[in-house]
């Protein structure tokens, strides 16, 4: 693997709330190289979005971030606000889930894309607007030069997401973080947007961090996968490791809940019983233990001892945080 452009080591994010300290992200590591795609998957509340916003440095003021976020080896955590501002939107850009609310309704899309460019380039408004129109054209907005003067509400959902992507890519960032970029879209449009992301990634050599709970999308575009559960890494590895050699019962649960056409159809999709724990509510043992179907194979350890990531057979960096040493048989 090439040198990673973005490395995250032992990232912790803790929110100070009325109910005390809430650890939303409790020590995760990941890395992504130019042109590569890392998918972070997990249920709502698993900390996947918080990790990405922590990398961007745009968490609210009640969040405490510690650990290492390295961009080309340069530590971003603790960097002065002014320095971080120069990196945001320039070296690391973000695509949001809901393009309608992510775009400012009071300004034209061309203005908004041009603003992203002008924030990092000393150019005239006119030149920036021309650049914005080019970018809108690049992401497949028909008649882009004219449509740049339209407002967000005058676009369809898919076109709006293209605008958001144009805004993120206008500065040719090294890392693109896409937080559920297709969740709010129709299935056919989802495919178009994912293809667009793959195209521009190839063209610009961007490292992509894709946050998703849609394993179907992930299987298609990701190189590596990080499965998060309750603010921690449950399992990580290459896309083949996760799909063919999943070692964590939670990963198996996610796979079982996904409809597939490549294996003989099951009578019905499986579900993971229960719901994810609220952050910080499980302090000892394995956070997945209350919902796990395999605890009887391990016993007491699941309740008393927190499992750490340990190497598993696979393509190299396959690791899982489970006391069950061998690959669990699928229980249906």
């Amino acid at each position, binding site marked *: 693997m090439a040198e990673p452009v973005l490395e995250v080591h032992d990232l912790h994010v803790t929110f100070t709330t009325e109910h005390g300290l809430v650890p939303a992200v409790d020590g995760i590591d990941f890395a992504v190289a130019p042109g590569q795609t890392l998918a972070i998957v997990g249920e709502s509340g698993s900390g996947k979005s918080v990790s990405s916003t922590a990398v*961007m440095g745009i968490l609210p003021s009640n969040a405490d971030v510690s650990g290492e976020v390295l961009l080309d080896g340069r530590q971003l955590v603790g960097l002065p606000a002014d320095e971080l501002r120069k*990196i945001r*939107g320039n070296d690391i850009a973000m695509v949001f889930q*809901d393009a309608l609310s992510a775009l400012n*309704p*009071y300004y034209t899309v061309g203005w908004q894309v041009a603003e*992203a460019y002008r924030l990092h380039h000393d150019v005239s408004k006119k030149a920036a607007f021309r650049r914005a129109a080019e970018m809108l054209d690049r992401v497949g907005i028909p008649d882009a030069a004219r449509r740049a003067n339209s*407002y967000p*509400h*005058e676009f369809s959902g898919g076109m709006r997401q293209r605008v958001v992507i144009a805004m993120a890519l206008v500065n040719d960032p090294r890392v693109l973080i896409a937080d559920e970029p297709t969740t709010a879209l129709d299935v056919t449009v989802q495919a178009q947007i994912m293809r667009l992301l793959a195209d521009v990634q190839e063209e610009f050599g961007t490292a992509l961090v894709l946050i998703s709970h849609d394993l179907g999308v992930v299987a298609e575009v990701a190189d590596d996968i990080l499965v998060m559960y309750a603010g921690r890494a449950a399992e990580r590895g290459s896309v083949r490791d996760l799909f063919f050699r999943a070692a964590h019962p939670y990963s198996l649960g996610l796979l079982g809940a996904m409809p597939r056409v490549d294996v003989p159809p099951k009578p019905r999709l499986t579900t993971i019983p229960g719901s994810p724990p609220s952050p910080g509510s499980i302090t000892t043992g394995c956070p997945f233990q209350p919902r796990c179907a395999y605890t009887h194979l391990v016993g007491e350890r699941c309740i008393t001892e927190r499992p750490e990531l340990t190497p598993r057979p696979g393509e190299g960096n396959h690791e899982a945080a489970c006391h069950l040493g061998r690959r669990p048989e699928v229980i249906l």
Partner: protein
Amino acid sequence: MPDLVWFVMRRLFAAVLVMLALSLAVYLIFYAIPADPAHLACGKPCTPDRLEQARHFMQLDQSTLQQYVNFLKGVFVGRTFGDGTAAVHCNAPCFGYSFPLARPVTTLIMDRLPITASIALGAAILWLLLGVSLGVIAALNRGRILDRLSVGFALIGVSTPSFLLGLLAILVFGFWLNMVPVNGYVPLTESPVDWAWHLITPWIVLAVLQAAAYIRLTRSQMLEELNLDYITTARAKGAGEARVVLTHGLRGVLVPIITLFGLDLGALLGGAIITEKVFSMQGLGDLLISAVGQLDVAVVVGVTLFSAFLIILANLFVDIVHGVLDPRVSHG
């Protein structure tokens, strides 16, 4: 743009209808008062003959409906009371004639309007600036000392009667500190400096009282606005905090602020009765109060209609500005 022209035309037509209904209502109310304006004109002692003469001259001997029709006619072609050498002319647009003041109502209003407008416009600009900036400061420092101070200031502002604050200001700044003139008005055309100097105290008094609503509205709108996704987008683009708040945040806050501002200004232009009284300024409010005291129905009807017209105009202005400020309204 033709859409806008149509819109304004429709609204102006509706405004005329509203004014017609209003003028009729005001006429009927004042003619239901069991007091005879002719009595005042007749003087003391008043013989029945002279009373009858006065009534005839003032056209009060005609039916109420006929008087109303005369009034409407006067607006377009003017009116003449009496005949021969004693005749009194009131040129179109004639909104009635004040016999106690021996002037057409239109002239009276136009004479007084500059004073009221000077007070209202100056105060409005001050309270808009004061209210919005304190509101933004409060929102950005939510829960901290600056927030408490702004909200406390707003609370004092809404709960203080204008005559109290006005009299206190005159006492402290006019008499004790001898910094500003205690009353009087100098036309702008005569001396802009003296004009402003005589108006500064009423401006500040009105601004302090009115700013309260703006502080609270700006604060709550801004807090809501800052939680929106597109604010996060602006941060993710690398916009500095000032740009995030002023360019992206304030834009959405402006719509409700301008709405309130238009209506407040419209109401105030119709006469700041108490403020004018306290500062001895002969504006529209003063004209109205004197007219009520003297049963000068023509002036009361005229000033009331003028105020109503201003309110309608303010509403129209607000709707147009709303369309300009929010592309979702105009580019539906």
